[in-house]
């Protein structure tokens, strides 16, 4: 692309992206407010949950004072917000260490699992989607349709449980729990993560493949495709060089949604495989009413989601010929 064209493109895209970022920040703020005040509605607080059945009035009161839970809720929220803006997510009440340390131990795990699952599922999903769009209504398409539909319909706990029963309990090929020792070799990491990746991929591939198929089919009915075909270009080339760039917007959007699920929606997979990720950490934070930790997790998930959507939008804007040529 030549210099002026790029500049023109950026000139149109940048304000749009800037607006997205601004609205993203506002969303984050609202999410933090909602999470904080909804969590207040949960029965009990960190002091009570920590003492559990053993909670007596004076013990609860003493812990509350120690945690600062005796302060009014708005004050606690503002304190947390100020801390967050100055880069300090606070101190986990329950884990008894800085929230940033707790998260630092878990976030890489979640990112690793999400990245590996994405590396598996994106190419597979694209291939399936393109193939079935190109052979629309043919036997291959129908076969793939049945496959993806049933994959979408399968709940992940079933996929995971079946995988464990067959691959680890019966065949003993793969470990049934994904607990990776710190000094594990890459091979062991892959082996431990194989089933979680498989489970997550099953769900994500099906979703992405179906969206890809729909987006490409929609483009295939456009006049320019007909023109290209009439000019004698091979269908495969038409799809890869003409259709795909035009369909990239919706496809990337679908991927962004699926990938954000990989990070946050993996709770069932994390539970079944006992994988120490961020989603189970957040569930922990909810059950133990550990507000600083809960808020931090919510912020991370929300930020990741907004970032992915922002990237998808940006790609869609940049890939949109109408926008590009304006």
């Amino acid at each position, binding site marked *: 692309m030549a210099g002026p064209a790029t500049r023109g493109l950026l000139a149109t895209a940048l304000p749009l992206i800037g607006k997205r970022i601004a609205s993203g920040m506002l969303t984050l703020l609202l999410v933090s407010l909602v999470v904080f005040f909804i969590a207040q509605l949960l*029965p009990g607080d960190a002091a009570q*949950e*920590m003492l559990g059945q*053993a909670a007596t009035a*004076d013990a609860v009161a003493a812990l509350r004072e120690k945690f600062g839970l005796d302060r009014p809720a708005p004050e606690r929220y503002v304190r947390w917000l100020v801390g967050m803006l100055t880069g300090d997510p606070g101190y986990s009440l329950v884990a008894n260490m800085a929230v940033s340390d707790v998260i630092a131990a878990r976030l890489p795990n979640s990112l690793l699992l999400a990245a590996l699952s994405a590396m598996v599922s994106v190419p597979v999903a694209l291939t399936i989607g393109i193939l079935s769009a190109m052979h629309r209504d043919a036997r291959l398409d129908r076969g793939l349709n049945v496959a993806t539909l049933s994959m979408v319909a399968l709940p992940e706990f079933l996929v995971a449980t079946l995988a*464990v*029963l067959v691959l680890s309990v019966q065949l003993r090929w793969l470990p049934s729990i994904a607990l990776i020792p*710190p000094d594990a070799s890459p091979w062991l990491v892959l082996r431990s993560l194989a089933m979680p990746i498989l489970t997550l991929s099953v769900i994500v591939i099906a979703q992405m493949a179906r969206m890809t198929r729909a987006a490409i089919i929609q483009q295939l009915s456009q006049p320019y495709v007909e023109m290209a075909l009439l000019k004698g270009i091979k269908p495969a080339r038409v799809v890869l060089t003409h259709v795909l760039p035009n369909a990239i917007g919706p496809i990337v959007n679908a991927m962004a949604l699926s990938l954000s699920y990989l990070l946050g929606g993996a709770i069932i997979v994390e539970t079944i495989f006992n994988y120490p990720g961020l989603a189970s*950490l957040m569930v922990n934070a909810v*059950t133990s009413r550990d507000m600083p930790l809960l808020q931090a997790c919510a912020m991370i998930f929300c930020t990741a989601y907004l970032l992915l959507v922002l990237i998808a939008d940006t790609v869609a804007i940049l890939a949109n010929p109408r926008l590009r040529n304006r």
Partner: protein
Amino acid sequence: MRLSRRQMLGTGLAAGMMGLLPRLASAQPRRGGHVTAACMSSSTADTLDPAKGALSTDYCRHAMFYNGLTDYDDNAQPRLSLAESLNSSDQMIWRVVVRDDVKFHDGSKLTADDVVFSLLRLQDPASGSKVKPIASQMASVRAVSPRDVEIVLTSPNVDLPSILAQSHFYIIKAGTTNFSTANGTGPFRCQTFQPGVRTLGVRNEDYFRDGRPYLDSLELIGIPDEVARVNALLSGDVQMILAINPRSTRRIRESGTHELLVTPSGLYTNLIMRRDAIPTSSPDFVLGMKYLFDRDLIKRALFRDYATIGNDHPIPPFDPLYRADIPQRTLDLDRARYHFARADLPSTPLPLYCSPAAEGSVDMASVLQEYGSKVGLKLAVNRMPADGYWSTHWMKHPLGFGNTNPRPTADLIFSLFYKSTAAWNESGWKNERFDRLLLEARAQGDFALRKEIYGEMQEIVATECGTAIPVFITLIDGFDKRVKGLRPIPLGGFMGYKFPEHVWWEG
């Protein structure tokens, strides 16, 4: 009460070791190997602070790294551990001499100061101590000499040796405030502790019990999902799992490579009838409910026979203090109908609160509802989520379920849950005679006389207290047959959570 090493050896009543010699003769403990054990919970609330221990993983973890002044033998009776002797002539002023050959993991020697520090902090509510009500009966704890500690109680209690064996009373280094790692005297040194993920301990070569621990290393994880836990065991990823459902027992037995550790325990789920609400305050209502429990059905259908039938008081039949001659209460619809007729039942359905937090209570509630409909009692079953159940629902409704873990002594159960002034006096009942007997038994050194007193207390609770205890739940764990040395201790799964120094690996 007097416990000393010489006495234990002399009488041969150190049941834990001596009684087992014939069985152990064929299987000598072997050193080496690594075992991974999975408990049922693990979260950021995991802690290395004995005072805060709340769940099974905590109890096991603490048994890896710490010791108490005393310990439990196989019959859940106290024996000496870090203490060389523990004496009292009046059950009120106790003299503890700590062993001379014990070192903390950092190399420092165990002293009386460590004991004083460890015990006194349990009384500080800001420590998050789970046993503050129990620890508060220590009026003073002071070091008399570098190895002597004097504990003065607020009133005589013959059970102090038993209380001190609980994991919350484990001894930590004086002045410890940071629990990111453990500095204890226990059989393993803490190598890795990641809350909610894993705990790894390696053998403490300086451990004061010769030859122990047997394992080179021991890893502890939590797998909250029961099915996943059983799968992890059967696939060989872990070698021991805590707390399995009776439904999984067949799968484990049929594997041929795995076995069950079955522990009859004092764990119970009880129906609570509050004295401060209508109609549950009526003694007739209470009796009616007690006759409404089909205990055989609950034992057979809900727990697949992994349970012991209870008689509405908290002492299980296998406890030496159990009074056998109180008639066993059974399902009796006629009597229930008679009592309900006198209890002036409301016309609207009476809400009954249950939750997965109190094991088996949801099913028990349905059974009660069914039988209630036959005798004119309308119950509305309210199933509450486990999350927040203890803080929001437990003891807060006229009719609801509770769940109580095994406690090492009758005195602890009675004083924590049945004494008039107890914080967890579940039904809010008051009985002066009961309270008086409780103090009397505590001060009574003679076992036969104490058994008599506790017998009367069992009868009082069974007839008058607003609590119905249909069964005691048997604990079931699973393990790889190559894990040796496991024996049931009726205080909890995994040998009352104290397995770390007892097991060895024969692989």
